[in-house]
């Protein structure tokens, strides 16, 4: 990937901006896809998923993928798209409850699943991005997911060792991003995206809004640009809701 960045010191703050932004999702993934690769994709259910980038992967036809994602989306959306086309060989996930196709492919042996506890998965990805090859956790001790993992006692308590995870490519979904790749997520759409951004050999971010560099607020940036190679603004965001729950508005609209 060409890495194009800014001059920052000599020019008294007046930097010559060069740009990580790409005009189309296809461009943002150009040259980054290959058979047998590992791909991390942010999202929790269908919230905070880089859906346009995933569609590009589907259309590319790249195969034999290992996908690392908390869920594999739902039938027909998010990573569910890549299940339909049979592009996924293995998934590292914590939960596949809302995806019949996933469960079916698993039970029939068409796809391998490595189940991780959700917090362990999140921490493994953070560790991978932060150069930590392994860490210990109490999560999963005494369960089938501890099988084959080293167990060790610290201060009289049992822990198991988990390893860091990295990917060939991380796809993240941000609310706003600038031309340097600084990212801000929105509400619970943050979820796995920040850690995945740090753990990709290449990281591409799909943005709802591409903004001018310098407008995000330096104290408010969730993912610094150093972790992001390319960004692309994706239009058409009629966001879907997986489980709409509401309550009736009170008759008397009082203090609420």
């Amino acid at each position, binding site marked *: 990937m060409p890495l194009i960045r800014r001059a920052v010191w000599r020019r008294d703050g007046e930097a010559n901006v060069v740009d990580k932004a790409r005009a189309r999702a296809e461009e943002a993934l150009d040259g980054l896809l290959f058979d047998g690769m590992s791909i991390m994709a942010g999202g929790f259910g269908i919230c905070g998923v880089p859906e346009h980038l995933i569609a590009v992967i589907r259309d590319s036809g790249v195969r034999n993928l290992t996908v690392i994602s908390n869920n594999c989306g739902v039938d027909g959306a998010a990573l569910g798209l890549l299940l339909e086309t049979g592009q996924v060989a293995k998934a590292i996930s914590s939960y596949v*409850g809302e995806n019949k196709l996933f469960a079916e492919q698993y039970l029939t042996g068409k796809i391998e699943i490595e189940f991780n506890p959700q917090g362990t998965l*999140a921490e493994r990805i953070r560790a991978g991005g932060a150069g930590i090859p392994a860490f210990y956790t109490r999560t999963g001790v005494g*369960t089938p997911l501890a099988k084959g993992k080293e167990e060790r006692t610290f201060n009289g308590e049992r822990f198991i060792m988990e390893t860091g995870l990295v990917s060939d490519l991380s796809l993240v979904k941000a609310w706003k991003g600038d031309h340097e790749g600084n990212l801000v997520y929105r509400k619970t759409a943050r979820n796995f995206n920040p850690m995945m951004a740090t753990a990709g050999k290449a990281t591409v971010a799909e943005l709802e809004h591409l903004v001018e560099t310098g407008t995000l607020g330096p104290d408010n940036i969730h993912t610094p640009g150093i972790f992001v190679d390319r960004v692309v603004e994706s239009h058409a965001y009629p966001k879907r809701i997986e489980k709409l729950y509401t309550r009736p508005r009170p008759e008397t609209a009082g203090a609420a």
Partner: protein
Amino acid sequence: MAWTREDMAMRAAKELKDGFYVNLGIGIPTMVANYIPEGVNLILQSENGMLGTGPFPYEGEADPDVINAGKQTVTELPETSYCSSADSFGMIRGGHINMAILGAMQVAANGDLANWMVPGKMVKGPGGAMDLVAGVRRVVVVMEHCEKTGASKLVTECSLPLTGANVVDMVITELGVFDLARGTHAPALLELAPGVTVEEITAKTQFAFTVALT
């Protein structure tokens, strides 16, 4: 005569204490939020990265980016903050959450809990449950006493794959309340639902227990 689902949620709510940070699982545990006692001020955590989870939105006001760990649309409160999944599970694993209330398929006398898979049948994955039972300071299970087949879910030893070993502090079913104390002592029956007898609950409970009705 046994407790309804609402009664069970209400009973679980009595376990909540002022100042708690609490994680509620899906199903009856979610309903516990409707029965928080007066004078008990607490903050709900959703492990997908929301601290300070509010009620369901009014019709027409749902925000697709504001969901709880059950993927239900919820709302923000003044004290709400969002964080990454890594930071959220740092709260959980690090022991910062005071109580988790969650469902189960089986609970054993020694505090073992199974709720994430039925081999060959149901594969959903552990989600955040393994982290919650391992990291939260006090774990309360709310569940039906028996399976549809009639088999007790309060077992001598879990036959299903474990979510956590020696993790359950208390079990609340439609028939009563047991103190499991994470297996540090034998199960103790603390309460009976109205009209339920010790004989009836004994018949429907696989594990042995002491009776310590209060």
